């Protein structure tokens, strides 16, 4: 299957392992994510879900195994290279630019858009001002999509918890990714907000031609949202399939309900 880039899956993990000292956070995890799907990642606390995102975004290297992006191995690439390849992420423990305004958080992430010229920036020419106001428009539009437009000028640190999670998504979207990695986007939201987020994610996927990988503890939400899911337990992939398959899988039931731990 080498050579045919178009036939290659968007993302492919081959035998990915990661140790932290003696701790095996991930062991020999393999799966593929296809273009355009919403892919769920579930597992008990400490199963290695965030660690997997850290590998996929270049934040930490894998101990073993390779990750392929559109058929090409991504090895030793920095987080900024990963983003420029089209992989964006949010953070489970929120890493917004808290000193900046909500709008500026998104503007920062629009840095790869044309800015209107260096000399124009220096002279504050009308061309530069026009381009910058276009960028602000673009940022506002993204905030609008996530329901944050009315808070654009607030400082990011002043947002409510659920709004901060949505701002993380807006900021990641601003980098124009093909693959968006969402680490517990609904954490801290009430059931109604969770429901709305679910609809929103489906819309965003349509509008921005996204592929989504979503980590979420609230399993019913993922069952409703995702085409396929992977289940991690103690760093091992214990199940992979459609929501129906996952729901019936005895090993998943064991991991979640077999309360011997």
């Amino acid at each position, binding site marked *: 299957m080498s050579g045919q880039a178009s036939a290659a899956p968007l993302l492919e993990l081959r035998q990915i392992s990661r140790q932290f000292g003696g701790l095996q956070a991930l062991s020999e995890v393999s799966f593929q994510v296809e273009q355009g799907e919403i892919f769920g990642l579930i597992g008990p606390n400490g199963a290695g879900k965030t660690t997997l995102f850290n590998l996929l975004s270049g934040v930490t290297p894998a101990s073993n195994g390779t990750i392929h992006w559109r058929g090409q191995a991504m090895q030793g690439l920095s*987080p*900024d290279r990963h983003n420029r390849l089209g992989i964006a992420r949010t953070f489970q423990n929120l*890493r917004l630019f808290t000193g*900046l305004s909500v709008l*500026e958080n998104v503007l*920062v992430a629009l*840095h790869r858009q044309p800015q209107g010229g260096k000399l124009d920036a220096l002279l504050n020419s009308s061309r530069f001002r026009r381009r910058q106001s276009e960028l602000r428009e673009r940022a506002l539009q993204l905030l609008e999509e996530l329901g944050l437009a009315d808070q654009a000028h607030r400082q990011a640190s002043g947002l409510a918890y659920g709004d901060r999670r949505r701002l993380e998504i807006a900021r*990641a979207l*601003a*980098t124009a990714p093909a693959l968006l990695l969402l680490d517990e986007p609904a954490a801290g939201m009430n059931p109604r907000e969770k429901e709305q987020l679910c609809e929103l994610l489906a819309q965003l996927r349509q509008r921005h031609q996204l592929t989504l990988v979503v980590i979420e503890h609230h399993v019913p939400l993922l069952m409703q949202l995702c085409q396929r899911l992977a289940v991690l337990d103690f760093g091992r992939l214990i199940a992979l399939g459609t929501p129906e398959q996952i729901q019936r899988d005895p090993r998943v039931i064991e991991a979640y309900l077999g309360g011997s731990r």
Partner: protein
Amino acid sequence: MIDNGLLVQMILGALLGLSVYLPMAAGQLSLATPAFYAVGGTLAALLSTQGNAQSAISLWAVLGEMLLAGCLTAGLALLVGLPVLRLRGIYLAIATIALVEIVRVAILNLPFTGGAAGIFGIPQPFQKPFGYVLFSGALLAVCGWLFQRLEASRLGRSMAAIRDDELASRCMGIHTTRVKLTAFLASAVLAGITGVIAAHYLNTWNARQGSFDVAITTLAFVILGGSRSWLGPVIGGLLLTALPELLRPVGDLRLVLFGLVILLGPVFFPQGLITPALLERLGRWKP
């Protein structure tokens, strides 16, 4: 009272404050400013005292020295910055203090820099201090414009983002090493050309001009003035340079009072004198 002589020193202080502020605006605690200041000053002192000694020098020659100093400090900053900017926080601070010490000891011991006494009789481009006020004042005004433009541009936004969260910035695709290196380079160039002006103004130059003390004083400019906008280090540099002179009437007590200001400033103004809230009230500086 503030005479023209003090005014020149105040403006030079503001320029050095801006030099310390640049890496800090990208979240890097670099104390390397005195090293580049010393390189610029020494370069100017050496070049302008070559050949038969004159007491005057043309402004063009000084501008030429500034250009050379800018290139030299930029080259040095590139060389040092790449390895050093891998360090974070206090480790970066210590590495840059080491750089200041290395440059100081080198200038002290090189065969052509006049040893501990230094270089004397550096020629003057202006006959009166007022000439220096205009010249350095114009440079400060140009810097003010450039900093204002910087804070409204992509580079300035990326710097602010790195300062808030470097990892998140990288995950947004920002080439953080490049941004940090750019800030460090600009900081070095600004310190270098300020050194050129200072050497001519002071008429003499020695290794003590770029010592660890200067690193602490210039850091105080930024901390007291505020590190959230370029106006902070400018105000901090102007005030803290003027203060010891204005306190001269109280005699030896002035050093105690100066120390108290540096000590208590951050207690009463934890964000410095110039805060984002203050700028907001003064009108919209940030577009």
